[in-house]
């Protein structure tokens, strides 16, 4: 019997994923699943796992003798994460599927309680990510303040040696975990469907799952502080990793959890961008931010499994007593180095590419010019993404790797600066002879170019093997990656936040506070990290609590600037609180007069994004063009506050 080709079936009957009874829940539904139940179930899971680990492990000699039970810690954290996911409702559908049922009572919540629940609207997930990411960032930032306090004086120590190294390790790890999702999570999830003219993400449940896993990862890595911390820095080198106390499990397992979050987020983004582009949106009409998202998603999905494996092997070394990373027992410390950096290099491009995308998206709006060399921007991002898998050994040039590899990796690393440079071509070309409105988002984008230039050029120095001998392992490389990651990505993130927040929340941000935030952040960021190039050249290693006395002046300058940099974020927080909660002002639908598809929606954006799925006619960069084609056909619904292409009105209300 062949597949029936009878009458066309009414698709409305069940549009996949086959649907639910949407009953509206009341905001005060305390007995439903929300973050409270997640915390409770996570806590219970933790206790269960810890007890189980003690039950299993207490008879083992090495555990009884040392008093440290890594098995208990591992199981405690594992069950905590599972409990957390169960509590929030992330596992309802996977479990229900096993008995072939839809999860009962998948209710639709409205109101503020949505943000504390497992919600399938990509816009809600985006805002949840904003909060999560800012939480990570401020935690890591406080730890950074502690580091700079310790480094004020080479002989007077604020922290004990082991406390200091824990703080350094925790700072690095939290920041890296945060930075891998800082743009993809909040802005990617929120805006990619809108930018491609879609009503939804391909797999909303996987998207929400990635958020709640990300938050769980935060708790896991934070738990290190309660287990005595870990001494290896964010790079986790073995066998120090094998020697360390139980806090090391928080690192290893934390990375495993975060890598799952990264994989799921990237998976969802990639599949959405490939399949859910609105009719008419060919690849040459895709906004450059979306290009950066798909390039990033490729790395997120393919590189994170390697981290997952590396972390799993590390946990096995510490619990099952395998010897993956212990040379004396048939393992190899280089195995960790290679696995970690094979992930680690794409990881830093996971951090750089979204910054490029944001900058490419925002600059045309404020220049009122099309993005210069759009195809080169897209090619650059794909090129960076591809090449990033071939450069990892530049992190370990002097480790004792096969010396034949060194010129090879030097070449590939130098080559990757070619596509990276494309973003500068695109930016400079767009700025050329424009009439630039220096609003707060635009200032952040200019700062990205300034900072990433220094970061990128210092990267070329590092890629050169002879010079690498001078600068590896010290403050030069530290300054390099702070310039690229913080100076590039984080500045871009804030620029994107200032740009898109009025659309996300419907409330303008305060311009004056924004300007104060930008200038203090930019000036003090450079004052903090530029001297570190010099400090590094003068021989101060990383992760040390003491240094040569003659470097104290520079260190102090850097530390004081760092405190001011930290303070600049308070201005941001004040802006956020004031403009979003305390004295909010309604924002017009398209305050920046952008041609982007995401701006051609009402504010606040309705749950279904677009009244009709638009038919795309051209790319969104036709600024200041006489006779420019219309962006899209929105069907019966009139385009809401469509921006004018031909004029460069500075009046946001037009």
């Amino acid at each position: 019997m062949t597949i029936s080709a009878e009458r066309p079936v009414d698709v409305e009957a069940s549009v996949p994923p086959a649907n639910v009874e949407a009953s509206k829940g009341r905001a005060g539904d305390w007995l439903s699943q929300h973050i409270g139940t997640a915390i409770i179930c996570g806590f219970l899971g933790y206790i269960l796992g810890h007890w189980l680990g003690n039950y299993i492990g207490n008879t083992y000699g090495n555990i009884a003798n040392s008093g440290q039970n890594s098995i208990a810690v591992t199981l405690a954290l594992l069950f905590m994460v599972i409990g957390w996911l169960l509590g929030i409702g992330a596992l309802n559908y996977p479990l229900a599927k096993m008995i072939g049922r839809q999860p009962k009572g998948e209710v639709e919540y409205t109101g503020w309680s949505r943000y504390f629940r497992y919600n399938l609207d990509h816009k809600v997930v985006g805002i949840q990510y904003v909060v999560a990411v800012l939480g990570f960032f401020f935690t890591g930032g406080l730890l950074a303040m502690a580091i700079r306090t310790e480094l004020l004086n080479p002989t007077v120590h604020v922290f004990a040696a082991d406390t200091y190294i824990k703080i350094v390790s925790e700072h690095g790890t939290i920041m890296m975990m945060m930075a891998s999702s800082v743009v993809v999570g909040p802005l990617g999830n929120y805006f990619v469907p809108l930018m491609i003219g879609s009503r939804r993400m391909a797999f909303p449940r996987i998207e929400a799952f990635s958020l709640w896993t990300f938050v769980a990862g935060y708790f896991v890595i934070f738990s290190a502080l309660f287990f005595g911390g870990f001494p290896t820095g964010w790079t986790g080198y073995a066998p120090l990793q094998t020697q360390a106390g139980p806090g090391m499990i928080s690192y290893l397992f934390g990375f495993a959890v975060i890598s799952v979050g990264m994989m799921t987020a990237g998976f969802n983004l990639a599949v959405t961008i490939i399949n859910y582009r609105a009719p008419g949106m060919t690849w040459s009409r895709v906004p450059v931010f979306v290009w950066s998202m798909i390039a990033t998603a490729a790395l997120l999905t393919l590189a994170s499994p390697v981290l997952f494996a590396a972390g799993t092997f590390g946990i096995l070394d510490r619990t099952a007593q395998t010897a993956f990373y212990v040379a004396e027992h048939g393992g190899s410390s280089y195995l960790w180095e290679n696995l970690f950096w094979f992930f680690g290099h794409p990881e830093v491009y996971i951090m750089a590419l979204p910054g490029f995308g944001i900058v490419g998206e925002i600059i045309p709006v404020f220049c009122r010019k099309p993005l210069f060399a759009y195809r080169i921007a897209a090619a650059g991002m794909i090129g960076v993404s591809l090449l990033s898998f071939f450069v990892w050994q530049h992190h370990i040039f002097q480790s004792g790797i096969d010396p034949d590899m060194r010129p090879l990796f030097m070449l590939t690393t130098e080559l990757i600066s070619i596509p990276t440079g494309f973003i500068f071509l695109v930016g400079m070309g767009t700025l050329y002879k424009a009439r630039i409105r220096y609003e707060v988002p635009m200032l952040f984008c200019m700062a990205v170019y300034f900072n990433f230039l220094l970061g990128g050029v210092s990267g070329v120095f590092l890629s050169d093997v002879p010079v690498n001998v001078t600068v590896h392992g010290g403050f030069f490389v530290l300054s390099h990656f702070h310039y690229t990651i913080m100076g590039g990505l984080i500045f871009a993130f804030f620029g994107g936040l200032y740009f898109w927040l009025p659309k996300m929340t419907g409330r303008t941000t305060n311009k004056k506070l924004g300007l104060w935030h930008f200038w203090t952040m930019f000036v003090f960021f450079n004052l903090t990290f530029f001297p570190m190039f010099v400090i590094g050249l003068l021989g101060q290693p990383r992760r040390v609590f003491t240094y040569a006395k003659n470097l104290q002046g520079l260190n102090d300058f850097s530390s004081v600037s760092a405190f001011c940099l930290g303070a600049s974020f308070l201005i941001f927080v004040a802006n956020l609180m004031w403009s979003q909660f305390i004295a909010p002002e309604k924002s017009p639908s398209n305050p920046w007069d952008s041609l982007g598809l995401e701006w051609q929606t009402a504010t606040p954006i309705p749950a279904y994004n677009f009244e009709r799925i638009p038919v795309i006619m051209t790319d969104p960069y036709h600024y200041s063009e006489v006779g420019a084609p219309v962006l899209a056909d929105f069907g019966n619904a009139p385009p809401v506050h469509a921006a004018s292409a031909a004029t460069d009105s500075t009046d946001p209300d037009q």
Partner: protein
Amino acid sequence: MGSEENHFRRIVIIWVVLSIAGDLLFWFLVGPHIPPGRMTSSAKDDQLDFNILMVIGLPVVIGVFEWLAYAGIKWNARNKDTPESVGGPRAAGNKRAEVSWIVITSVVVIFLAGFGTVELYVGSGSGGGEGPNPILQPAGAVQAETAALAGTGTWSPNSNEVLPVQVIGQQWKFTYRYPTFGGFESSDLILPVNTVIAFNVTSLDVIHSFWAYQLEVKADANPQINNVAFTRTEQLGSFEVRCGELCGIWHGAMFNPGHVVSQSAFMTWATSTESKNAANTKILPPFAWTYVPDANGADGGYYPDNVVPYSPVEVYGSKQPS
């Protein structure tokens, strides 16, 4: 038409002037003082390499900064005489600009990769650790190293022989063994001037990194691995050794001074230390590239104590006892 050329031409002229000035200033005023100095051949090589990179990098930085400044001053909407932006296909791309950019960046980058490779070869690894099978070795290194292991190595002033020095890293101290002088172990790192030194870096526990700053030598110390790095001392003086890879709590305290002395002074020190330490050297493990416990117990079989490995678990291949 006129004003279009004006902008670009103006930018280029300013850029050329600033770049030449910057490069000259850097090369003559700052360059000679760039760390780590000129104490060894690798220090000189790497300093040159750094300066070349800077001379190429400065114009890039100047160019972009100048463009951004120009955008802030001349193309600013606040400026009343800034003309309106013009869109359209001419603003969206410019074949000449795009192709020039791609070609110039590719050429520069490939040149740098090639130059770096040449510097690496010329400098016999430029002071970086090359692992246990180095491919870039100065003349005489292979013989000296082989002889050192066999215990037949010699070194004397004015002999132009390579001096092997073993660096042993452990938590949290570096010690140094001199195989050509009986294999004595010392906390002091004294080296003769005008000599090629072969550093053999290993670790007893976790990963450290031997970073002799002014010598411009950096090689990670891995357990069970002999990481070899070469340099040639060329000036007398003191230098600082710091651990360059996080190795635990006291990583920051893992540093010691070192000295490059005249060849005769070194010979005196080495031979007198050899005889002074003779009794100690006898009970040390014999000189080897790495020191790790072997498969039959933590004592590694080095100490002739006839003690059975303390745990049957340590006899590999057997089942864990119930």
